[in-house]
Structure formats: structure tokens, C-alpha cells
């Protein structure tokens, strides 16, 4: 059993359950620290705890193998499932090997190989999201980083079997969403999901990566908020103090959620799953719609934030 080293216990429980008020100010920053805690379970930890048999695949059949993405077939409750995740490293050497969980196009294309197998065998597809973003490198760009992310989303959207995306740590930017176009998108209680990492956002908005705390407060990327905005369909509870304090319990909670959700999704037809999946993302967003006869710019009515609980 590859259970991670335990870190120091976190005494403060910083995230409210999803019925409660949203986390504000400094607490958001604490949430981000918790989502990034170096002892937090990573995909291979959850896989080790939930899937006694797992066969990892390697390589994109084009250029290389990207260790920032792990992908494979696992035996889960006596059936094969396809599993993928962003894999950060825990110690310095492993972190470098995993490129800090920042995939290049090879990683997403390895993922598409797995999707192809999942499509052929009609395997449920489970994605575990935990990345500061896709790797920003000239080589990655020239091998089509943008297209790899886009095509990963499109391929995932078309899968015939149930798909579930779980944000287990930090889900930042298109590099996270590349694995997130699923029937159900859920977040662990202390995970975050954001358009960009706080540092990246601060560098753009304040032109100072040091203003990351401010950016975090502006983005408010907590699980509770994402649930409210309709970005997450559910929040999976973590053990008191965070998933790293008791990985087995975190895995057990995830197991409960996945089992129930796969059962629900299994009952649907391929066509229904596809329609539901499309509708889910088709609805996401917050905008207002002017009444047909309004004189353009000045109208303020018909506010229709279409986010919210799904």
C-alpha cells in the first residue's frame, strides 16, 4: 500500500461544508495552502488505495512519455475503469521527474490514448485533477500544447461510458480543465478550482506574482464557491484537518462518492449521458440578457446568472 508520509496535523478546519457561507479573505489563502499541501494524497495514492490492481500506460505514441500525467486501467469494485490524473512529486527528485504536475502535450495525448481505450471498451473514465497548470515551455508550445488541451476536452466529451472528474488538489487553468469535461465534476472539500493559479493571476492583474494572496481572494476558488457557481456538482468531505491527515479516510469518502455516482450514471444510455454532459457545460456561465426591445447598452433588466446548483 503506497500511503503517503503523514505531515503535521492541521488544527484549523478551514473549509465550511457546502451549505455554509463562502470562505473569505485570508481563509481562501489557507484553503489554497491546504489544497497544495505536500502530504496531500496524489492520484497514485488514491489509485493504490482504491484499486488493488492497476496497469499504468506510458507514452503518447508520438513523441514521449509525460510523467506529470499518470494514466491506466484499474480494477475498481470488480470492473475495469480508466483512471487518469495529474501527478505531482512529493520529494525534490520526484517533483522534478513529475515536472511539478505540469503536463506537456505528451501528457494530454497519453490521456487521449486512454480515452480511446475507454471508448472502445466502454470503460468508466475517472479523472483526478491536481495541477498548477499546463507547462509553459517553448517546446511544449511547438508540439501543440493548446491543441492537445482542446482535443483532450473534445475527446473526453465524446466518451460513451460514465465520466467523473474529481478535483483532488489544485485545479488551475486549462491544464486542469483538459481532464475535466465529465458527466459529473466534483471537488474534494479542501480543493480549489480556478481560471489560473493565484501567482499567475497576480502576475497578470497586479503585474506582481507576490500579490498571490490578493489574487486568491479575488478568485475565491474554493469548493464551496465552485459548488454554488455550478462548476462543481458536489463536494466530497475530507477527514478533519484535510485529506493528508488521514488518506485512507479521504479515499474512503471518495470511494463512497464514486460508487454511488457510477451506479447512477451506469443506468443511463450512451445518448443520454452525452446529452446530459453537453447540457451541463452548455449551461455554465453568468450573464444577463437584454429584453428583445431594449435599446442596447443602457438596459439592465433580465439578469440571468445561469450558474448555481445543477
Amino acid at each position, binding site marked *: 500500500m503506497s500511503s503517503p508520509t503523514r505531515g503535521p496535523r492541521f488544527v484549523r478546519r478551514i473549509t465550511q461544508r457546502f451549505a455554509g457561507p463562502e470562505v473569505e479573505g485570508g481563509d481562501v489563502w489557507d484553503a489554497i495552502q491546504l489544497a497544495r499541501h505536500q502530504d496531500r494524497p496524489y492520484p497514485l495514492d488514491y489509485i493504490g488505495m482504491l484499486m488493488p490492481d492497476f496497469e499504468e500506460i506510458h507514452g503518447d505514441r508520438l513523441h514521449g512519455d509525460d510523467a506529470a500525467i499518470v494514466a491506466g486501467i484499474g480494477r475498481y469494485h470488480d470492473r475495469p475503469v480508466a483512471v487518469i490524473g495529474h501527478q505531482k512529486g512529493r520529494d525534490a527528485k520526484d517533483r522534478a521527474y513529475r515536472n511539478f504536475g505540469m503536463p506537456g502535450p505528451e501528457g494530454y495525448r497519453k490521456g487521449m490514448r486512454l480515452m480511446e481505450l475507454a471508448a472502445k471498451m466502454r470503460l468508466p473514465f475517472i479523472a483526478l485533477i491536481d495541477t498548477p497548470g499546463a507547462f509553459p515551455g517553448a517546446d511544449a508550445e511547438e508540439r501543440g500544447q493548446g491543441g492537445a488541451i*482542446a482535443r483532450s476536452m473534445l475527446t473526453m466529451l465524446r466518451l460513451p461510458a460514465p465520466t467523473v472528474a474529481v478535483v483532488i488538489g489544485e485545479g488551475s487553468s486549462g491544464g486542469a480543465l483538459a481532464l475535466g469535461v465529465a458527466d459529473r465534476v466534483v471537488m474534494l472539500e479542501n480543493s480549489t478550482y480556478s481560471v489560473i493559479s493565484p501567482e499567475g493571476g497576480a502576475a497578470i492583474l497586479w503585474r506582481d506574482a507576490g500579490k498571490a494572496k490578493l489574487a486568491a481572494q479575488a478568485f475565491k476558488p474554493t469548493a464551496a464557491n465552485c459548488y454554488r457557481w455550478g462548476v462543481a456538482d458536489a463536494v466530497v468531505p475530507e477527514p478533519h484537518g484535510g485529506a493528508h491527515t488521514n488518506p485512507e479516510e479521504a479515499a474512503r469518502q471518495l470511494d463512497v462518492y464514486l460508487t454511488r455516482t457510477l451506479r447512477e450514471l451506469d443506468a443511463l444510455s450512451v445518448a443520454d449521458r452525452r446529452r446530459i454532459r453537453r447540457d451541463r457545460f452548455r449551461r*455554465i456561465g453568468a450573464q444577463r440578457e437584454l429584453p428583445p426591445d431594449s435599446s442596447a447598452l443602457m438596459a439592465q433588466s433580465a439578469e440571468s446568472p445561469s450558474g448555481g446548483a445543477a
Partner: protein
Amino acid sequence: MARRPISISIDRLRGRAPAQKPAKLPGDERSCPRCETHFSAQEFARNVGVCAACGHHFPLGARARLDHMADGGRWTPIGEELRAIDPLQFVDLQPYPERIRSAEAKGNTEALVCGELAISGQTCVAAIMDFGFLGGSMGSVVGERFARAADRAVELGCPLITVTSSGGARMQEGVLALMQMAKSIVSLDELNDAGLPFIVVLAHPTTGGVWASFASLGDITYAEPGALIAFSGPRVIEQTTREKLPSDFGLAERQLEHGHVDSVVDRRELPARLGSLLRILHQPPRPVPSLAGQLAANGSEGAARIARALPQLSRRLRDRVLGEGPQRGGQ
């Protein structure tokens, strides 16, 4: 058969150097950042923002692009009624509603303007980004307008054309902006099901979440000369990896060499090129084969007999059951 040569070499497809910010001049005069030629606003408009002397491509607004592309400059807006709100109560150096208001004051209603139009007589739907509106950033309105444009293309059975110019997802809408990437992908999947072409024109700059979603999934992809096309911008890459990037990093011409673009097209030639492409792709709507005929073709006469007895089977059901939706292209 007079026409342009078909044996296009990479050399001939090459474009020009990257754009820099135009210098501010007194009055309505502009100066080309590359060749320093001065020209008037009329000249600028006449050349759709291309320097007549050196071919440098200036940024161009979405409406000007639509006027230029559409036959007779006529197009019918789609999704104009959609406006941004501030779901996160977002404040960075300025509150988000203030940013929206000052962007709107410049004349556009959002960073994506969509319309139904004809190009060389071929009906199509266009979704054009405007870098002048908050850096062409993709928020909820951009996502919803894009989706409605795609819906309209499916209704009409015509191609969808997009011209992209964007800094990426709109920070001020947080994770909701991120989700618009996925939303745009859903629209492409609808186009796929309907068998309709998706044509992308990459203008300067196309970066971040726009490049990493619909902009990189064109069936045919043109780029304007000198356009920067990248997921991560050069500055971010240099800061992260401490590598010195080549001066043409991410530019359209280099992206062509790396296989990410089909052709670098001068903006002045774009309507003609698109017209020609639409003419080639045009497919008359096919007669949907009868269920009976299909089943018979599949070799099961018994079922075909049954199916012939079912005139009440709607076309929509038939399509779904047979896994063969209506195939349409062109107008």
C-alpha cells in the same frame, strides 16, 4: 481555368514580422510600427488595418471585420442581447463592472461579435473576437454567444467561421471564465454531429484559453501574418523556464512550419479565400434516407418491412436510431 496556383510552397505561405503597438500620432494619423509609413484613418479603413507599404497587420475591431467579410457589408447579429455581469464581485486594480463599462463605451458590447452573413454568396455564421474589448478575453458572454452562433449554424446547416484575437480566459470571471473553454468544445461537438465545417482564422494575438479550446480545433485553420499564437505567452515562458525564445516564437509563420496552421492569409485576401473555401465545401442538404431503405441496406429485410409500416417515426428519431444525422455543408 484561371485560378491561383495550387502547388503552394511553405516559402510562399510565409507572412511577415510580428506586430508592435502603433505609435500615437496627432489627429487621426497612424504610423506603421514596422516601416514607419504614416497614413490617415481613411487609408487605414480602406486597407482593413493593413499597412499598404509593408503589409503589417494592425489589430482590427470585430465589426469592421464583419463589414469587410460579409457580402455588401450586410450581416445579422446573433446574441447581441447578452451582456456581462460580475458573478464574483471581482476587484483587482479596478472593479470588474467599471472595466466592462469603459470597454462598452468604446462601442462594442462584448469581446465576441457574432453574425449571420453571406460570403461570395455562401451563407455562413461568423463569430469574431475583438481584442479591443478587455483584451478579447473569454468570459461567460463570449462563451454563450459562441454557443448561440454554433446553434444557428446547425439550424441553417452552414459552416461556422471564427476569427480569434484574445488574451485568453477573462480573469475577472474566475473559474466561470475557464469553463467557457469547455462550453465552446460542446458547440464544436454539435457541429461535428451535424457534419458542418468549422473554419478558424487566427488573428494577433490568439493565446491562453482561446487557443487551448475552439481556436485550435478548426477543420481548416488560417492565420494572419505575424499573429502570435500560443497557449503560454513568451513572457511567461521566459520567466518560468529562463530560456531565451527565438524572435519569431509562436508567430503564424512559425506555427505553419510546426504544422499548426494550414495557411497564412493576408487580411485583404480573406473574404476571397473564405469565399473560395466555402464554395469548395458546399454540400447540398442530403435527402435523409428512409428508415426502411437503411434497414434493407443493412441486410435485414424483415426489419425493413416493419419500418416501412412506421411513417410516424420522426426524422429526428430516425437520425438518432440510425446514427446518421443529416449531413450538410456549405449553406
